[in-house]
């Protein structure tokens, strides 16, 4: 599934540069600790896992809990090693994974 996501990553970099990547996905991150108007607890529904791969190899990941804000935002770094695709994958409590990609040219 394609994510409603906003990615901020440089399109070009020099080999060996440390680049910053920021990724945000639209998701309500329902905590499971809230009551709805009818007094019923609203079931938890969060993104619990985020994985970033670069040229096919995992370079960063995160386990997320309900205390991560709605529309989870994560910024991290990586070393520009080669031209290729950076892939972002967010997995929800429902087991569904949403993905987004960014291309980078390294010279």
């Amino acid at each position: 599934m394609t994510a409603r996501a906003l990615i901020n990553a440089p399109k070009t970099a020099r080999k060996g540069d440390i680049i910053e990547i920021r990724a945000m996905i639209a998701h309500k991150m329902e905590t499971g600790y809230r009551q709805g108007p009818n007094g019923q607890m609203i079931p938890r529904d969060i993104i619990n896992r985020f994985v970033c791969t670069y040229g096919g190899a995992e370079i960063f990941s995160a386990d997320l809990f309900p205390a991560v804000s709605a529309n989870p935002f994560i910024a991290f770094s990586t070393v520009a090693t080669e031209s290729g695709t950076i892939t972002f994958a967010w997995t929800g409590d429902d087991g569904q994974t949403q993905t987004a990609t960014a291309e980078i040219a390294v010279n």
Partner: protein
Amino acid sequence: MSGPTSIRLARRDLIFGAGAGLVVLTLPRAVLARPTLDDAIRGFTGGKALNDGRVKLDIPPLLENGNAVGVTIDVESPMTAEDHVRRIALFNEKNPQADIAIFHLGPRSGRARVSSRIRLATSQTVVAIAELTDGSFWSSRASVIVTLAACIEDLS
């Protein structure tokens, strides 16, 4: 307005009204049984000693709203294959659940620096812990004050 007027109103007075949506109300008792901050930290470190230093936890001390609090964790590390930060964990003292997030890094990270946005239910302590390749744990804590948003909506 003539003369000074003093208004005091309880939060419960502010949150009534109508609309379509959800409110945050009191929790059932079961939720109260969360591990303490120290228990949660022990769960992560396996009981190993926590060292002070190396970790910089950047979080505003006074928050306008606890729903989206920007945090940045910076760990001093060469981030080489032999010597790098493996994991960075964030825990809180007073949310219904102690865990916030665990970030997994490696030598390809280049720099041990991670930012995110988190929820803090109330004024409390937040702790960041870094696990290094040599098996040592380093930590930093910060206390934050969460102010109450004015003119919220109830939606019950």
